[in-house]
């Protein structure tokens, strides 16, 4: 390894290094994706009285809980059945059954959401039959709702696990769809979304539009719970009664395409009408959302919504000059990337590097279509399956003005000497960001505020006395 002597930040910043870096085939460095059960947990937290239950090693559960607690600064409950070596040999059934028994006895859940981690998947545990046996043995009441999701970490990512668990919970809780029991409600599935404020924003807008709706799942009161002086294990979530009617929905609206595809397919298979729209980030994204609701209600968009939209437009026109022509790099989940890129294009911002570690083929097509639809998207390249070490090479060799992504991006942003706008998960190093929606018309204003004021901070910081102005 004669290269030793040349290792410097300069070398790491070189085009030579970038090529070496992009030549790697197997090693993944700083990926922007977690594993399935994290998404399963996020989903499970959004159901009333639901106890998340990891069938696998207890270490997995500890990791998921820590990750979410750090990000949300909220308690996150989940049990596991603490499988160890003997389970590897004999299978996880005894742990599973004892785990269910204890968990039920202590936590009295309305539903238990079981999902698996690697170990159980590799050894091929049959959780469906284990559950049958658990009930047989009266470890839990026979009528206790227990949802089962297979969420192997070596397939997909956190968004896959979310999807599987939305499905498993509906499967477990919903009564069959019958022509005469169809309700009048729009079931809205937010997708893997780490902003309780986004969910609240959806609910507010749906209410404002007078649409009878169920948000499924809904973690907003769980991951943004008030401090009232008492700890509540189950502070909120989609009501079980509405889960029971989930297959009798008048129709479904999916607010993310790539974290709900399994669920959509399942619902369609049950004869439930499903519409999928891009995550309502940005003005036109929100317009789509509003129009989808209006289509559902068959009513006109209320004036108050039009006015609210007008305030977002006002912020856009007020601030376009600070974003127009600026170059951006982004990374994150497919759905959030579609939304953020759409927002930037609306502002005349120019995405340049788009890194999506958990990319898929349909996402790639959708992103390319979106980029080609705008003159401001022409300079962008999507890097599917790439990671944040690739991103670092991109940032230092083809500079941009700003990086947008989760807290893990702080290293690359620092090396490239550009600001990071924190969007996504994890964000361990700033507070309250999950309390501000990035969706809806308020989300438009919030994104503008974050991006523009960060640019303005940078200008002030870089200015000598001569250029240090009161107005910007």
């Amino acid at each position: 390894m004669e290269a030793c002597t040349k290792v410097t930040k300069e070398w790491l910043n070189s085009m030579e290094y970038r090529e070496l870096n992009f030549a790697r085939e197997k090693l993944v460095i700083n990926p922007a994706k977690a594993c399935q059960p994290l998404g399963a947990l996020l989903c499970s937290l959004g159901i009333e009285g639901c106890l998340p239950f990891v069938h696998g090693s207890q270490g997995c559960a500890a990791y998921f809980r820590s990750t979410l607690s750090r990000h949300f600064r909220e308690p996150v409950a989940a049990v596991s059945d603490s499988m160890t070596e003997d389970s590897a040999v004999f299978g996880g059934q005894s742990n599973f059954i004892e785990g269910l028994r204890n968990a039920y006895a202590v936590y009295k859940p309305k539903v238990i959401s079981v999902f698996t981690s690697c170990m159980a998947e590799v050894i091929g545990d049959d959780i469906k039959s284990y559950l049958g046996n658990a009930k047989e043995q009266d470890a839990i009441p026979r009528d206790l709702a227990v949802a089962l999701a297979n969420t192997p970490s070596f397939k997909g990512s956190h968004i896959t696990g979310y999807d599987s668990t939305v499905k498993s919970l509906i499967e477990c809780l919903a009564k069959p769809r019958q022509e005469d029991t169809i309700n009048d409600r729009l079931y809205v599935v937010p997708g893997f979304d780490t902003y309780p404020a986004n969910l609240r924003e959806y609910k507010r807008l749906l209410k404002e539009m007078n649409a009878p709706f169920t948000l499924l799942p809904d973690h907003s009161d769980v991951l943004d719970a008030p401090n009232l002086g008492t700890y509540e294990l189950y502070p909120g979530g989609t009501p079980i009664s509405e889960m029971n009617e989930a297959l009798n929905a008048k129709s479904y609206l999916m607010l993310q395409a790539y974290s709900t595809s399994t669920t959509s397919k399942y619902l369609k298979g049950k004869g439930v009408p499903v519409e999928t729209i891009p995550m309502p980030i940005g003005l036109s994204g929100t317009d789509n959302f509003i129009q989808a609701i209006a289509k559902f209600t068959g009513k006109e968009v209320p004036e108050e919504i039009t006015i609210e939209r007008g305030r977002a437009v006002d912020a856009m026109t007020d601030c376009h000059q600070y974003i127009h022509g600026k170059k951006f790099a982004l990374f994150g989940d497919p759905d959030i990337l579609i939304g953020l890129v759409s927002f930037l294009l609306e502002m005349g911002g120019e995405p340049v590097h788009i890194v999506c570690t958990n990319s898929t083929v349909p996402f790639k097509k959708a992103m390319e279509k979106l980029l080609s639809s705008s003159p401001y998207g022409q300079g962008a390249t999507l890097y599917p399956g790439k990671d944040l070490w690739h991103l670092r090479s991109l940032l230092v060799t083809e500079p941009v003005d700003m990086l947008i992504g989760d807290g893990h991006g702080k290293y690359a942003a620092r090396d490239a000497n550009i600001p990071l706008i924190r969007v996504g998960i994890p964000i361990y190093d700033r507070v309250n960001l999950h309390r501000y929606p990035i969706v809806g018309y308020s989300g438009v204003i919030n994104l503008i505020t974050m991006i523009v004021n960060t640019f303005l901070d940078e200008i002030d910081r870089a200015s000598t006395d001569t250029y240090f102005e009161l107005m910007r």
Partner: protein
Amino acid sequence: MSIKETIDFRKQVVEEVLELYPEKAKKNRRQHITIKENNECASCAVKSNSKTVPGLMTARGCAYAGAKGVVWGPVKDCTHISHGPVGCGYYSWANRRNLADGEIGVDNFVPFLFTSDFQESDIIYGGDKKLEKIIEEVVGLFPNTKGVSVLSECPVGLIGDDIESVSRRMSEKIKLPVIPVRCEGFRGISQSLGHHIANDAIRDHLIGKGPGREVGPYDVGIIGDYNIGGDAWASKKILEEIGLNVVNIWTGDSTIEMLQNGHLVKLNLIHCYRSMNYMARHMEETYGTPWLEFNFFGPTKVRESILKIAAMFDDSIMEKAKAVIEKYEAEMQKVIDIYRPRLEGKKVMLYVGGLRPRHVVGAYEDLGMEVIGTGYEFAHGEDYDKSMANLKDGTLIYDDVTAIEIEEFVSKLKPDLVGSGIKEKYVFEKMGLPFRQMHSWDYSGPYHGYQGFPIFARDMDMAVNSPTWKAVKAPWAK
């Protein structure tokens, strides 16, 4: 309440809490909880290092967490491959606060996640060939790496991969240590086995295999200081001021060479006994390197420890040691004068890992605070034995406490402060209870040594006396 009444009350609390469990779980859990009374044999009273009860919410992690997250992670000039699916590496990425000097990506690889990101095909066909390629790639991209660790995740062990032979082969090829660490999460019953496995890997692959070095008369190593928030540097500062020469730290701001030369010191000083006593013992047994346990939390314990350490060396060291104590104790007294009046008599309950459930007790006592409950996540019997001397009669002791237990204990014992981890933090916050993260120092620190105590004192005051707790109840709430 008298001590007797306190003990009786707490026993009753324990019984009440156990009532929440089904029979089998109750029987199991009862063995893990006790009240200190008459200095009885602790390890008899508290069962530890046994399997967690399935379905009860535990704070414990796994072997991988112990091996990668704790022991190997802080070795800064080594690239650590989280071998298996993406999750384990992802969740343990850059969130233990073991600081390291060095340029990130150049000679410091601590805040990195290197993963083999197993896919289904890797499960089916095995990951050994992939691992080979990954090791080649990591060395190509980070030519300064002084070694590669391979930290296996659950599937690796289950599908029968042979990372040992891959590591051997690749080590020869790249002419660097490649260390297989068999820390699959299903092994053992907590992160503790992970520490042990990680230690064994150091023993088998590194120690005594380095370039060697002359051992100076005052050379010492620090063992079991993970440099959380700069703790190891605070400890090092004291040791150097008393005339010692800290040549290795295991593992905080560490290098491969420090691991290779761990035995080449006059004395190893162990802070976290739990995670690294194996290695101290191994170095003593194999190389005759003596070791000593010490405690650098709070001026009282620091003084005791300095004197104990200095006594192992000559008079010149003892002289400096006394001077150091004198110098700093005056400073520490100022800190105590400020904070003790604000904290006197406040009660603390702890639930942490490693050394802290006993080591921090003295620091609280220096501030006039009383630890009324404590417990370990992954202790062994000797940890409880070592703890007893530090605890007052009536102290509630709990091993691998479950979430519901600690919630109930706290509700009933009503401490003024809870010190535990991130998973517990917000539960107590919601109860309106002052809390400090005692794994990560709540992103503050260091807490070790004379440098750390003023920060510790300030932080405990801030937690206990923050006016925000008074805000919890709305004025109109009933």
